[in-house]
């Protein structure tokens, strides 16, 4: 096939167009990255806003906990839970308080409910992580729950308590909901 001068001009123009498109595409890539960054930032902003809000909402509870007034802390938590029922942070704080009061089964149950609602509480990189507290609790509660269940394998309450302990253990090991 022979190309005349007109064809060559067309090929040159086509090459310019393709090159132009390539340049345009390359230039547009950073734009896409910016969009991803923006979504990350939005998520981060939402997370920060949530942390700021729960810090403010649950401040009376944490203040009572820091003062060692655990019963007052539980009552204040009860009051807040009326307005924000089912909030994961409430369950996590309840778990912490009951853990300090050595009410182990109650603490494990509360942590399970909190972690099921929001996995951030078990994530070591999260600002709200309670991983260390849960690990320490399980060191004591899991062997107890396992021994109790071994002694009475037909007891559904002990079975449920052991299952709760194992659930937290599995989440600590990286298992998903």
């Amino acid at each position, binding site marked *: 096939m022979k190309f005349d001068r007109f064809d060559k001009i067309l090929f040159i123009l086509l090459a310019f167009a393709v090159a132009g498109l390539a340049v345009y595409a390359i230039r547009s890539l950073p734009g896409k990255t910016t969009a991803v960054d923006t979504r990350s930032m939005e998520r981060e902003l939402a997370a920060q806003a949530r942390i700021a809000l729960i810090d403010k909402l649950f401040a009376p509870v944490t203040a009572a906990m820091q003062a060692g007034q655990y019963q007052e802390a539980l009552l204040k938590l009860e009051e807040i*839970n*009326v307005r924000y029922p089912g909030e994961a942070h409430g369950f996590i704080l309840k778990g912490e308080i009951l853990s300090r009061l050595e009410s182990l089964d109650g603490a494990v149950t509360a942590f399970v409910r909190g972690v099921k609602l929001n996995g951030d509480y078990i994530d070591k990189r999260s600002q709200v992580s309670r991983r260390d507290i849960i690990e320490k609790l399980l060191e004591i509660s899991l062997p107890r729950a396992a021994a109790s269940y071994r002694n009475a394998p037909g007891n559904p309450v002990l079975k449920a308590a052991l299952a709760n302990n194992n659930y937290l253990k599995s989440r600590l090991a990286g298992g998903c909901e």
Partner: protein
Amino acid sequence: MNLSVRRFLFQLIVLIASLAVLSSCKDQGRKVVKIGYMNCNNEQETKQRFVPLTRYLSDRIGVEFVMVPVDTHDFEKRFNQGEFAFTHTNSFIYIILKERKNLKLIASEKRGNFGSRSGGAIIARKGSGIETLAQIRGKKFAFGPMLAPTGYLAEYDLMLRSGIDPEKDLGAYTIPSGSFKHEKLVYGVLFGQYDVSAATLLDLETMTREGKITPDDFTILAQTPLIPYCTFGAAANADPALVAKVRKALLELGPADTAEVDGERLKVLKAAWIDGYEELTDKDYEPVREMAKRVNMPPYQKF
């Protein structure tokens, strides 16, 4: 009356009589077992709470359980008279009946923050100037009902262990009259009728949840140890197989279980305001016994 009408009437009577016999056979076929429920606040409330639970047990086990609401102070007498073979009481009545009549432990109720255990507190109104337990000397105090483990016994014991003799060191002490005594204690402190009072943690928790009080209104001066609370028991001569069935049914009772009462299907746990049942051992009730001994109350009372 002609023959065919007579024959028809005769057949009708036979049919009705047969149905009546059959229906009574059905009732008689189920063994009837009575459960005595200790009234917490009043009889009406006890019935509302525990009729669905009683019906659930009947449905699960195939025995006709009948609920008998019993005033706390009459409980031992009526149990001794054989009015009921199964009991639902607080842990204090349980240890009395265990000691005197060898009551069998079936299961313990779970309710509130501490599951099958609960405690009591000594409270003052915030801003009253009473900030520590030592400051209750000479003050006007109110206890809950005398047979309440976390409204009387535990707080009385707590005071004794803290070097405060309620008989000598308080200005005066009283027990509110009538029903809803536990709530009256809390309101009594809030509205200044008493300087200080005993309060069960369960009541503080429930009243807070219901918006009746706010924790900011009160100072908790001291808190008692946690002890078992409401307890199901059975007479020593109760059929062991039936006791095992009741225990199993209680332990397996979950939030979704329902029972039909007066044509209405109700959630059993929700109606009874409880979270479930747990199998404790008699040894778990040892702290209640120790309290009763220190406070010199039944079944260890010495004169």
